[in-house]
C-alpha cells in the first residue's frame, strides 16, 4: 500500500519529523506556510540578506545552521510545498491553498507541527501603530533587519522579553525599559524546574546583566496600565511598579507577549480531543508521550501542542515520526524512543519551571477597563464581553462570541481568544477552563473567493 504522509510545518518539529520519515525510506509531503523553511525561532532571512547565523540566532546559531542544512539535504526526498497554507479538512483530504490555487491532499497519516504564537494580554492602547507582539519584534529584526522603533519598551513576561530586548540592544537600538509582570519571587519558584537546563538559565541571566549594565531599566512585578499615543504612533507606556506606584516610560514602540499560545486549529478540525492544561493555562489537544492524539493517524509535535521550546520541538518531531512508524509496523530501535522520551522529559521539567517563573497574569483580564479593545479584528471591548457574560447570560466563550463577536474576525480568536476567555470567566466568577475554548472553523486563514481546485 502506498503511504501518503503529510507533515504540516517546517520549523524544528516538522523538519525533524520529516527527516525521520525519510530515514525510514518514506517520502512525506511537507507543507509550510512560510516561503522559507525554519519556522519562527529559526526563521530565515530572505536569500539576498547576508548576516551570518551567529548574528541572527546568537547562542542557538549552531542548531539553526544544522536545522537549515539538514532540511536542504532532505529536499530531494520530500514533496516540499512552501508558501502553502492548510485551511481545511474534507473527506477528500487536507485542503491547502497557495495564492488562489487549492490543492486536495489525501493522507494516510499526518504529523502536525504548527508551532505557536505569542500569548497576548490586551491593554488599553494596544491597537495603536507601533505596538507589536514580542515575536513580531524579533521577526522584524531577524527576517527584515528592522526594529519596531528607536526606543521600544518590552512589556509582558517570559524569557523572550529579555532575549528580544538584548537582541535589540545588540542591533544598536536600546530599549527604553523591560517591564515584566512576574515578580522576582515567582521566578525563584520556577527556578528549580528550570535548573534542569542550567545553560539556558545562565544565558537568561547573562542577557539581563548585559541589559542592566547598558542602563536599560528592568522592572519585575509590574502591572501594565496602558499604551499612550496618538493615531500615528506610541508615545509611552503607563504602568504600576511592584510597590503600586504609577510610572510612565516614554517610548516609540512596544513589544508585548506573555509566553506562547499553541496553534491548535488544524488538530481541532481533525477532531482531536482537547483538554485544559493547567500548567500552561490553555486548552490543547491531548497527546500520549510520543505525540499520538485521540485520532488514529494524527500526530502532533512541537509548540503546536506542548509549549516546550525549540529544542523539545526537534525531539518531539522525531518522536512523533517514530510513533507513526511504529504504528505502521515499521521497526524503530527501542533505544531511539527511550532516548527521545528521556531528553523530552528534561525539557518538559524546564518548560514547567518556566511556566511557574513567568506565569500568565490572568488577573489582568479582570481588571481591563470596559472600553479596552480585546478582539482587535472586530473591535470588541472588554465591556462587550462582560455584557455577553452578564446581561446576555453567556456561560461559555462560543456563546459570547455568537452574541458579541469576540474572536469572530479574520484571525478567528488567535490573538484575543485566551484573554477573552479570561474576561468572560472573571465576569462569570468561574475558573477559565469552565468557559471553554473558541471552536476552530475552516478556512483557518482567509481564503480567496476566486480560488480554484488544482487539476
Amino acid at each position, binding site marked *: 500500500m502506498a503511504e501518503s504522509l503529510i507533515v504540516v510545518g517546517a520549523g524544528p518539529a516538522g523538519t525533524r519529523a520529516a527527516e525521520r520519515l525519510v530515514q525510514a525510506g518514506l517520502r512525506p509531503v511537507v507543507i509550510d506556510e512560510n516561503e522559507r523553511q525554519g519556522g519562527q525561532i529559526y526563521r530565515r532571512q530572505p536569500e539576498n540578506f547576508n548576516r551570518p547565523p551567529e548574528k541572527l540566532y546568537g547562542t542557538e546559531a549552531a542548531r539553526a545552521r544544522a536545522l537549515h542544512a539538514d532540511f536542504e539535504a532532505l529536499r530531494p526526498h520530500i514533496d516540499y510545498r512552501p508558501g502553502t497554507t492548510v*485551511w481545511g479538512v*474534507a473527506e477528500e483530504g487536507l485542503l491547502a491553498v497557495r495564492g488562489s490555487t487549492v490543492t486536495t491532499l489525501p493522507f494516510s497519516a499526518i504529523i502536525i507541527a504548527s508551532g505557536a504564537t505569542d500569548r497576548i494580554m490586551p491593554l488599553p492602547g494596544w491597537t495603536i501603530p507601533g505596538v507589536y507582539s514580542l515575536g513580531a519584534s524579533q521577526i522584524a529584526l531577524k527576517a527584515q533587519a528592522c526594529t519596531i522603533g528607536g526606543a521600544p519598551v518590552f512589556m509582558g513576561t517570559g524569557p523572550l522579553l529579555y532575549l528580544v530586548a538584548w537582541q535589540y540592544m545588540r542591533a544598536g537600538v536600546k530599549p527604553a525599559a523591560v517591564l515584566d509582570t512576574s515578580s522576582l519571587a515567582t521566578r525563584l519558584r520556577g527556578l528549580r524546574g528550570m535548573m534542569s537546563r542550567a545553560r539556558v538559565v545562565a544565558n537568561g541571566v547573562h542577557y539581563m546583566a548585559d541589559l542592566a549594565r547598558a542602563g536599560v531599566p528592568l522592572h519585575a512585578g509590574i502591572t501594565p496600565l496602558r499604551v499612550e499615543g496618538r493615531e500615528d504612533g506610541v508615545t509611552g507606556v503607563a504602568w504600576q511598579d511592584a510597590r503600586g506606584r504609577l510610572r510612565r516610560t516614554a517610548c516609540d514602540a512596544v513589544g508585548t507577549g506573555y509566553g506562547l499560545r499553541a496553534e491548535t486549529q488544524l488538530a481541532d478540525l481533525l477532531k482531536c480531543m482537547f483538554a485544559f492544561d493547567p500548567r500552561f493555562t490553555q486548552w490543547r489537544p491531548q497527546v500520549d508521550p510520543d505525540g499520538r492524539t485521540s485520532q488514529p493517524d494524527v500526530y502532533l509535535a512541537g509548540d503546536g501542542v506542548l509549549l516546550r521550546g525549540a529544542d523539545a520541538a526537534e525531539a518531539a518531531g522525531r518522536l512523533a515520526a517514530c510513533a507513526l512508524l511504529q504504528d505502521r509496523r515499521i521497526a524503530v530501535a527501542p533505544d531511539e524512543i527511550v532516548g527521545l522520551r528521556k531528553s523530552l522529559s528534561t525539557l518538559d521539567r524546564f518548560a514547567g519551571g518556566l511556566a511557574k517563573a513567568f506565569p500568565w497574569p490572568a488577573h489582568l483580564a479582570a481588571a481591563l477597563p470596559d472600553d479596552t479593545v480585546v478582539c482587535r479584528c472586530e473591535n470588541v471591548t472588554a465591556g462587550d464581553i462582560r455584557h455577553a457574560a452578564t446581561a446576555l447570560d453567556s456561560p461559555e466563550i462560543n456563546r459570547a462570541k455568537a452574541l458579541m463577536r469576540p474572536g469572530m474576525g479574520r484571525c478567528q480568536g488567535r490573538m484575543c481568544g485566551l484573554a477573552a476567555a479570561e474576561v468572560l470567566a472573571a465576569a462569570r466568577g468561574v475558573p477559565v477552563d469552565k468557559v471553554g475554548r473558541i471552536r476552530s472553523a475552516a478556512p483557518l486563514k*482567509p*481564503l480567496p*473567493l476566486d480560488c480554484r481546485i488544482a487539476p
Partner: protein
Amino acid sequence: MTAFARVPARADVIIVGGGFMGAATAFFLRTHGLSVILLERDLVGQAASGTNFGNVRRQGRYLPQLPLSNRSREIWGRLPELIGEDAEFLPAGHILVTTSEEDGARLEQYARDCKPWGLDLTMMTGDQARAMFPMVGPDIRAVSYSPHDGHANPRLAAPAFGRAARRAGARVVEQAEVVSIDRNSEDFTVETADGNRYHAPLLQISSGAWGRAMAATFEEDVPMAPQGPQMGVTEPLPYRIHPVIGSASSVTEEGVYLRQVKRGNIVFGGGRRSTADLATKRARLDPMNTLRQMPYLARLVPAMARLRVIRTWSGVEGYVQDSLPIMGPSDRIPGLFYAFGFCGHGFQLGPGVGATMAELIATGRTDIPLDPFHVSRFQRTVPTHTAP
C-alpha cells in the same frame, strides 16, 4: 447526587426546545397570560435557529404558507417595541435572480400566483435590476424583487426572544435536557437529565431536528432527516449590497444566496447541504461545498470574487420529506402541540410561529391556515383534525 430537594414545577404550558419557535412561543404565550416553562437542552437559539443564513424572505415560499409568513413579517417590523431589540433586522429588500429562461418563467408565474396571498413582487429584467442594484452580475436575466423582505442576525434573534420571554415571566431553563415525557389523565410530566420534573396540562414540542424522536414518543412518526446548511462569511467591506440576493436556479449547486450585514461582512450559503448528526449535535461543514459555492456567488455579484472568506459554519436542521414543517396540534394527544422541522426556511417564520402557536394554545384557534403542516399528513389513517 444533588443535595437539594427537587421542587416540582408547574405551569400552564411546557415548551420542549428553546430554538426560535420555542422561544417565540414562550414570549407570546405570556402576552396571553399563560404561565410557561421553556426547557432547552443547551442554550436558547443555539442549533438551527442560530446558525442559519438569516433570511427574512417571503417570496418563493409555498403559497399556503404566506399568511403565516406575512404575519411573521409584520412582527419582525415591531421587534424593538415587542422584545426591546431589533436582532439587526434590515428590511432592505430581497431579490431572487435567474440565469435561465425556464427559471425566469417560474419566477413570473410565482409573482402572479402570490398576489392573492398578499405578497406583491416586482419582476425586472436583468438590466432593470442592474440599474437598481449595480452589483448584480451580467449573467443575471429575470429578477423578482420583494421590497419589504430583508435579513436579520440569526445569532441574536432567538436568544433575544428567550430573554424577552424571561422578562415577561416565562421560566426559561437552559442546559435542561428532557429525558422523558409522560402523560396521565390531566398533565404532562417532563423530566430533565438533572432529575427535575415539570408538569403542565399543555405541551409544545419545538425541538427542531430532534422533533422526530420527541413526536415518536407519542407514536406520531414524521419522515424527517437532519442536514446541515453550508454557511460562510467574508471579511468586512463598506456596506453596499442592501438586498438579500438569492439564486432561483433549479440546479442545486447554483442555488446560492448572500447578504451584506451593516458591519460589512457578506454572509452566504446555499448549494449542497452536508450531513448532520443528531447524537453529537454537530453538523460539519464540508469545505468542498464552500469551494463549490464560490463561482456561483461571483456570478451573482462579480465583485465578490476578490474577497476572502474568513469563516464557515453549519448547524443541525430538520428536513421533512415534503419540505414543509410540522406545525399545529397533535393528531392523537389532546393538549399536545408541534412546531418543528422547518426544513431550513424557518427563520423568517419564527415570530409568526410563536404568535400563531401561542394563539392556538391559548384560545384553541387561529386564523392562520395550518392544515398543510399538520402532523397527520404522514399518518396512515385518515386524520380527523379540525380545519382552521
